């Protein structure tokens, strides 16, 4: 089991990295955009970043879903940051500042995912949810729920966790902690990693571009 977990970790991480690099290369090899550079006002860039942080476009079209999605994205980022303490030695100072927020976010995260699932499946009767999104949301619900249980009820030795992760990165892995819930948590994360929709890293760029386009559209015939 330990060997399976360790090999699984390398495979999952390798697939994740390959997918990110492949997309980057694909982007590099594609055709440059046709046309001459249009103005890119600083103001529209700032508003574009706000659009990303607040998920404004989703808010405009589906406020009910926005509540769940925004909470999910914010708590996911905080929890991910908090998990950096397991892979960094020494840990960054800022991580200590994030610690309490990350901890609170960890408890909210599964509820936001549950809300999204219920909203999609019950309120919208599953009409608009894609199978891949459903799978990933469910998987994240498992990961986040086991994470909460690990912190609050079936505590795992964090020193053991950290040494396991650090030695994985150092390519000389020690045995994982002998906590079944941790194994479920870690295994679920390994399943999640290759399925991370890496193509979505383009979404923030698309949002900034959309804001710029809206500004330019207004100027096109009104300027």
């Amino acid at each position, binding site marked *: 089991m330990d060997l399976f977990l360790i090999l699984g970790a390398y495979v999952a991480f390798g697939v994740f990295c*390959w997918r990110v690099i*492949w*997309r980057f290369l*694909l*982007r590099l*090899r*594609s*055709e*440059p*955009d*046709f*046309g*001459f550079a249009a103005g890119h006002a600083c103001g529209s860039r700032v508003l574009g970043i706000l*659009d990303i942080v607040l*998920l404004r*476009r*989703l808010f405009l*079209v*589906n406020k009910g*879903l926005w509540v769940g999605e925004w909470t999910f994205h914010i708590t996911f980022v905080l929890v991910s940051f908090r998990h950096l303490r397991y892979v960094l030695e020494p840990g960054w100072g800022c991580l200590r500042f994030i610690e309490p927020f990350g901890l609170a976010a960890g408890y909210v995260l599964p509820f936001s995912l549950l809300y999204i699932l219920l909203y999609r499946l019950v309120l919208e009767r599953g*009409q*608009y*949810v*894609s199978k*891949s*999104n459903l799978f990933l949301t469910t998987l994240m619900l498992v990961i986040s729920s086991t994470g909460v249980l690990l912190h609050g009820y079936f505590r795992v030795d964090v020193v053991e966790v950290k040494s396991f992760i650090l030695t994985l990165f150092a390519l000389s892995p020690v045995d994982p902690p002998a906590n079944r819930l941790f194994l479920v948590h870690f295994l679920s994360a390994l399943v999640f990693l290759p399925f991370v*929709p890496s*193509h*979505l*890293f*383009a*979404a923030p*760029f*698309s*949002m900034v*571009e*959309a*804001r710029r*386009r809206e500004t330019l*559209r*207004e100027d*096109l*015939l*009104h300027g």
Partner: protein
Amino acid sequence: MGEMKPFGRTLPRKDLCSLDACTRCGECLKVCPVQEVARRREISPPEKIKRYREFIRNTEGLKAWVLGAHALDREALEDFVRAIFECTTCGACGQTCTVGIDTQRLWPGLRKEMVERGLGPIGALAGMPEIVARTGNPYDLPAGVRFTPWFPSHVAVAERAEVAYYAGCTGCYEAQPMVRGDVKVLSAIGEPFTMLPAGQEVCCGFPLFITGQHGMLKDLVRTLVDGYAAKGVHTLVCSCPCCVNMMGKDWPLYYGKVLPFRIRHITQYVADALRSGKLSIRKSLKERIIYHDPCYLSRGVGVIREPREVLRAIPGVTILEFDRNRENSRCCGAGGAARKVFHENAVAMGRLTINEALTKGADRLILSCPACHSKVHEAMAEYDRKIRITDIMELIGSLIEEP
């Protein structure tokens, strides 16, 4: 084997980024007019994007990289081509897109890609470049009858002027009450305006652009831009939203530099004239009218306020709004050249517009696009529900005429 070429490499970077950015959230499904009438999930925006991503993976993914790209399923390619040509390119999906994908540009971009691979366009659209080359318009009608059937005899056109009017092919051949209204109103404003002769006022390029057949666009654009520049034009006025969209967004790209004149939609020009007092509407109209925002005018170039400003200037009129209005308007079915192949979809969409106008209690449906004008009339032709359909300038023209 055109389809063996990698599918990601030939696509502009922005389009590739757009394809990647789709989260498959499904919000676009709620507003897609084609989905509303055809109810086929496989032609929906996220499915088209997913399909194209699969083409990229199959020709450039890890497996293709290691084992070499294998031939794509011909049927899958044909289904995809059909799906992108069935779209009206109205851009409602992009307007509601939670990550802001510019679908009004993405779908034509993918159409171009398919055309370059020899997989498109489909049906009657394939012959369009030859027709435009021969006649100067996509309707295969002689240039000699471009203006004569509808141009009012009392309206004078200047040889040279700062303002020019581009009538457009669809207006001239399919929506003549609209272009007649345009020139009546322009004439009433009193500023001299010029036009290119019928043989020189060729297609703006939009039908070719939208069907992915870009071969002759540079030549068409140069002919038109140089023609207007030679007449000393500073402002080019046009009433067709598709033409205006093409002029504003794409003419500079195909011309290779900034245009020597500005582009104005006719409602903008008329709204200016109403504000400055050069035009006034004295006749009243005791009617409840409902205005339909054309996709390429509202979502395309953001002309939303001015048509309403013009309509509000009519004494006595009550203006109603569709549930989906302004940049969220619903396509009437005429867009994206899809009406030429998927006629039934277009008629069904047109009838949805008619139904909602009647449900709202409107006496008259006001349009501001020749394609909408033609298609909604067609949708009503064999329909038991009737409403009076009038173009905005046709209406204004009738209200400023002497009794």
